[in-house]
């Protein structure tokens, strides 16, 4: 196994694990703001690692640029939607949990 392959497998697994950690954060974190935090970090880094791993064995520069473009777009999109949701949540005065506190039990708000 070449060094390149080892590096690639490390990047791939690390990227996938980042996604997993992001989802875990989404489940475990107590309120909306912290969940946004978990989300945006995780998918930018996770996708970034996976894209890096894939770039290592593409044949053309154009393809590498395309992969990077996809990563960039996803980064902007998730940052933007995270920002929008936080902005709207702030405007609606959704409370932020203090350390150690868990969100009070909410009925699903749309029912």
């Amino acid at each position, binding site marked *: 196994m070449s060094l390149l392959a080892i590096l690639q497998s490390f990047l791939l697994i690390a990227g996938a694990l980042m996604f997993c950690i992001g989802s875990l954060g989404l489940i475990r974190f107590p309120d909306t703001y912290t969940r946004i935090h978990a989300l945006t970090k995780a998918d930018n880094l996770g996708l970034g690692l996976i894209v890096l791993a894939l770039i290592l064995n593409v044949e053309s520069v154009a393809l590498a640029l395309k992969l990077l473009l996809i990563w960039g*777009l996803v980064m*902007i999109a998730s940052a*933007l939607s995270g*920002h*929008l949701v936080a*902005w709207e949540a702030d*405007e609606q005065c959704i409370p932020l949990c203090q350390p150690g506190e868990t969100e009070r039990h909410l009925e*699903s708000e*749309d*029912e």
Partner: protein
Amino acid sequence: MNELIDLTLVCILLGLASLSLFTQSLFRAVMFFILLGLILALVWIRLDAPDIALAEAAIGAGITGILLLDALAHLRATSNTPPQLRQLKQPRFWLALISGAGVILLLALAISEPLAPAVALDLQVSENLTNSGVTHPITAILLNFRSYDTLLEVAVLVLAALVAVTLRQSDEHPVVNEYLPNPLLHACLKLFFPMIFLVSMYLLWAGAAQPGGAFQAGAVLAAAFVLFYLVGLKTQLAQNDIYLKGGWIFGLALFVLVGSMPLLYGQPFLTYPDSQAGIFILLIELGLTLSIGWILFSMFLLSQSSPLQKKDSP
């Protein structure tokens, strides 16, 4: 390992479908439905049907999600929440369940027989591909071998828009647009508009040689139009009847025109001139892309006929 992946995908697909059908909350159902589109795109890739995956991604992630969310907003605005999902005791439900199960059973029976296609169409397609003007077989089928079907399908699209106009109960025109007063959003979208247009044109251009083409490009274009609208840019053009309908029929008119030209030269309907098929196909596809984008966008606009909330700007 691959079987495991396929199995997981199928399970997620079935789970999402039943969740979005049976959940009590509309919002949840909408979210699951959008997610279903995403998973479907994955499944289509898995089944080696990239054209459909592309269309599913463009339509499912873009216009369908927005239409559903918008419908939800309308229901809230009018407090016109539809009746909750009834209890499962209803005879109608059982009837639907039994007939659905029957259909599945019959289909399973039917496909259990070994298939022995008498005609190998795929061979014929690849033999004639060189004369079709494009190198991607699906585009060749859609716009050359079976272009008559596509012509009628485009007519179906125009007609669908027209039916949507008719089914709307009121004649009032879309209201003044509401938009989000968020500076970051506007800055980002300035970046995104040209990107979306570019990708749409890329899909159109790529259609000659690889998956892509007018329908996918049109769906992406529609998403760009919707974004325009959502952030409050001018859409006066779409409120003018002439422009609205002109946009609908542009592609169809072009198609009919190109298709009936050969009739004057004593050739059958929809024949392309020798060795120029590629150019004409691209021309038609360009027209179709614009029209499809416009039609999908006007479907969205038509749902905007009652005023939504007035949001206090910060």
